[in-house]
């Protein structure tokens, strides 16, 4: 199969403008006749459904949540990037483009990323017009902060709840369209299959989660905005119900899964505390603006801290290793996520970890408190302030900036981060891989589109902080409304599809059979226990660092686990009722197939880049060793079933504007 990115010709800065001016349109009278299915109501899905509804299409929108407002975009904390250059600090569309390409370790498409940087500015305008209450300074204008991997301040934020505010904005826009009748909303409906008619995506099969009824929905095309697959690892910062099933069902119907081994491990999460742990909680990257990461220099100090005989406060300044500042002086604590995570792992592997499990490093705000305290005292005209005053004033500034994060940390750990340095450790957070899409965000299945985290397109091998919100909203508000015309303009005379047609009935039967299959095993182990075991295999062998032997044995383990699942899983209840265990069983079954493809992809990619670190490929200093000659391509996998080996298709990446360099943050 030849994969065509379909990036329009022309110079980088003109591609999108020209595309928009020449893309085939669907006239308003025809839009009224066309139906679109949008699955998912996070930033990408809600913004797409709302905007397509505004344009006059008939939209059917699906979410498994009880309300569209609960999608996991809501939990994004730190902010959203945009090349506004409001700070006059040298930012530009090109610089955002360049930072994103470099941050992604040169594994994304130039054309897509430049478009993302261009529309980033419109997103902020749109959000403000919707009433999103971004942080402002005293002049009433918008404030910015810095995120990892960049040297400008281009991140817009709403305290530590930026995702919530942006999602509520999109949800409100969606709600308006629901009221106007242009969007029909299906809450508590989970997509379980894609329906293809003559090779094109023309509908979905969904389960009504309240009644268990299997329902058929037809449309002219299908848009998936169903998020990432981080929960393959069981423990992640994703919400409990995040899953890969919608995307995976698309793969089983012929779509390709691209770069599945590119998973992002976020450096600053609250460490695991016990076996019962159900999920991990992120502490926003914005904290690295002011927090300093360190471990003790001496092994005996680290041991004493682990045993509870000492705390971080007992370690003298000269006995601390601020390892990010030492190793990466140019970016210091604000190196990109993959670099920061690996450095934390290296420190803990050397025995310098500071929690009872040995898997934690400190994130310390003492220096920031002092700095802000002195500045605040100065502003208030207090000369020669005493230490207590400085600390009090400094803590107040820190609270204004990060109050809700500190509160959350204290709720979970029971420790006060104003007094004691935070303990943090990397955790699975985001997946750069996803459904393969071209410039139009269309998969290789015609009429099937993928937006947001569900596609692979913009972040390469590593996503920069505050770029997920940007990409989700760019795709939904500003890209798909144009690019969907390339497909739909050929369909203006196509009558509505009949959901009772043959393809729909066949897909419905396949779904019912699958449900019957998991219900009828009636074994002895819970779905949760399988998910936990899968997560452990994936984390141990396909997590922060990977090697060929480990990956080979992991694949075997996942295959065995999958067999065991279908022989011994126990799913209580029936299909004809509200049954969250059944929902989970279907999702875990898909995770186990997805996990295998992630491992295969990690095995195939014999280089280290971004979030993918192969132990065999590193420099003498332990930095990632990329191999552009052989691996500057997108790896897109076809998976048809257990009996056939997944097939790799390659899309070569062309770099016409950016020179491929070793990524350095030193």
């Amino acid at each position: 199969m030849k994969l065509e990115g379909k990036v329009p010709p022309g110079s980088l800065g003109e591609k999108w403008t020209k595309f928009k001016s020449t893309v085939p349109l669907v006239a308003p009278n025809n839009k009224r006749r066309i139906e679109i299915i949008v699955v998912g109501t996070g930033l990408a899905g809600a913004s797409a459904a709302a905007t397509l509804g505004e344009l006059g299409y008939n939209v059917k929108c699906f979410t498994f949540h009880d309300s569209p407002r609960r999608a996991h975009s809501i939990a994004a904390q730190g902010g959203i990037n945009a090349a506004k250059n409001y700070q006059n600090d040298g930012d530009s569309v090109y610089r955002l483009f360049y930072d994103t390409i470099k941050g992604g370790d040169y594994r994304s498409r130039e054309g897509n990323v430049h478009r993302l940087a261009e529309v980033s500015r419109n997103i902020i305008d749109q959000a403000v017009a919707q009433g999103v209450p971004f942080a402002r300074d005293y002049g009433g204008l918008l404030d910015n902060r810095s995120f990892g991997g960049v040297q400008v301040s281009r991140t817009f934020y709403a305290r530590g709840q930026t995702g919530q505010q942006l999602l509520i904005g999109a949800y409100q826009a969606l709600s308006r369209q629901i009221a106007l009748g242009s969007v029909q909303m299906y809450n508590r409906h989970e997509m379980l299959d894609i329906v293809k008619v003559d090779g094109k995506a023309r509908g979905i099969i969904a389960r009504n989660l309240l009644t268990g009824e299997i329902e058929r929905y037809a449309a002219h095309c299908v848009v998936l905005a169903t998020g990432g697959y981080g929960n393959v690892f069981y423990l992640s910062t994703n919400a409990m119900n995040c899953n890969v099933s919608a995307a995976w069902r698309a793969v089983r119907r012929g779509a390709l899964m691209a770069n599945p081994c590119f998973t992002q491990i976020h450096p600053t999460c609250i460490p695991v505390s016990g076996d019962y742990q159900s999920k991990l909680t992120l502490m926003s990257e914005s904290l690295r603006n002011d927090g300093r990461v360190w471990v003790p220099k001496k092994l005996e100090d680290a041991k004493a801290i682990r045993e509870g005989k000492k705390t971080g406060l007992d370690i003298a300044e000269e006995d601390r290793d601020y390892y990010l500042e030492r190793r990466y002086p140019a970016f210091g604590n604000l190196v990109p996520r993959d670099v920061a995570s690996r450095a934390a792992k290296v420190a803990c592997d050397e025995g310098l970890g500071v929690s009872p499990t040995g898997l934690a490093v400190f994130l310390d705000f003492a220096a920031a408190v002092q700095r802000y305290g002195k500045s605040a005292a100065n502003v208030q005209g207090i000369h020669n302030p005493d230490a207590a005053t400085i600390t009090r004033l400094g803590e107040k500034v820190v609270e204004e900036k990060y109050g809700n994060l500190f509160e959350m940390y204290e709720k979970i750990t029971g420790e006060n981060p104003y007094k004691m340095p935070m303990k943090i450790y990397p955790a699975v957070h985001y997946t750069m891989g996803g459904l393969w899409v071209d410039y139009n965000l269309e998969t290789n299945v015609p009429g099937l589109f993928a937006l947001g985290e569900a596609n692979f397109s913009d972040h390469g091998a590593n996503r920069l902080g505050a770029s997920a919100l940007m990409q989700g909203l760019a795709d939904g508000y500003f890209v798909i409304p144009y690019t969907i015309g390339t497909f739909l303009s050929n369909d203006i005379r196509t009558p509505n599809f009949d959901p009772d047609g043959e393809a729909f009935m066949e897909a419905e039967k396949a779904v019912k059979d699958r449900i019957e299959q998991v219900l009828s095993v009636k074994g002895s182990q819970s779905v949760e226990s399988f998910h936990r075991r899968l997560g452990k295999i994936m984390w141990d062998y396909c997590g922060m660092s990977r090697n060929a032997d480990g990956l080979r044995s992991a694949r075997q383990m996942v295959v065995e686990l999958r067999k065991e699942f279908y022989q011994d899983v126990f799913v209580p209840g029936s299909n004809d009722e509200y049954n969250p265990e059944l929902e989970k069983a279907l999702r875990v079954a898909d995770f186990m197939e997805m996990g295998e493809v992630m491992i295969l992809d990690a095995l195939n990619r014999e280089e280290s880049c971004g979030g993918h670190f192969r132990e065999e490929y590193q420099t003498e200093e332990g930095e990632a060793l990329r191999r552009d000659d052989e691996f500057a391509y997108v790896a897109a996998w076809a998976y048809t079933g257990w009996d056939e080996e997944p097939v790799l298709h390659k899309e070569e990446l062309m770099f016409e504007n950016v020179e491929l360099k070793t990524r350095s943050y030193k």
Partner: protein
Amino acid sequence: MKLTLKVWRQASANKKGSFSTYQLDDVSEHMSFLEMLDVLNEQLIAKKEMPISFDHDCREGICGACSMVINGQPHGPMGGTTTCQLHMRHFKNGDTIVIEPFRAKAFPVVRDLVVDRSAFDRIIQVGGFVSVNTGQAQDANAIPVEKDVASQAFDAATCIGCGACVAACPNASAMLFTSAKVSHLGILPQGKVESTRRVQAMVKQMDEEGFGNCSNVTACEAECPKGISVENIARMNRAYIGSVLGSETSVS
């Protein structure tokens, strides 16, 4: 620690519900409340029983999915905390904990602790937005907004739509939820244009959904995990009266 749990079990909206009692040994103080229920559910599944259904998702206190009344308080004993962020270190060995769904006429029970809160969505749909289509926006810095005003709007906008305010209110009123949205949008210059229409439409829908009236008990504010202030209710009342008596706008 050892705990006794009395949990509301109800197979579906139309079936009769009742409390079931469960014993749990070996609960760690580091567990979250929902992780404690996960452990119980695993034990029920091992006995081939139906696990307890409860809504939950992000487990970070922001999605608003989790919704249960713990010992008579929505989201349990800790102020400013959702159930998912409540940790077992706030309970003692030997405690008996009573767990019920959010109860209100407008929130029918789906199963066990799961209720239907779609009434909230419908309140937003009638006016909880700014009518601006994608692409119509001017530059984001074109209208300066005073820092404190933006901050006030933000405080109202932090509502997570969980419904604890309704569950806490003896009248099952949704005034805190509705007024938070009316305030958030009404305070900002971008939302002011539609504010008279918005407040009438949202109040009307709120009444039609079967929520009760506000009698200034202020339990909603006390139980709100995000600390939304009842000042918003006062602001909505002012806006409503101003809109009905002081403008020609009328939503019928």
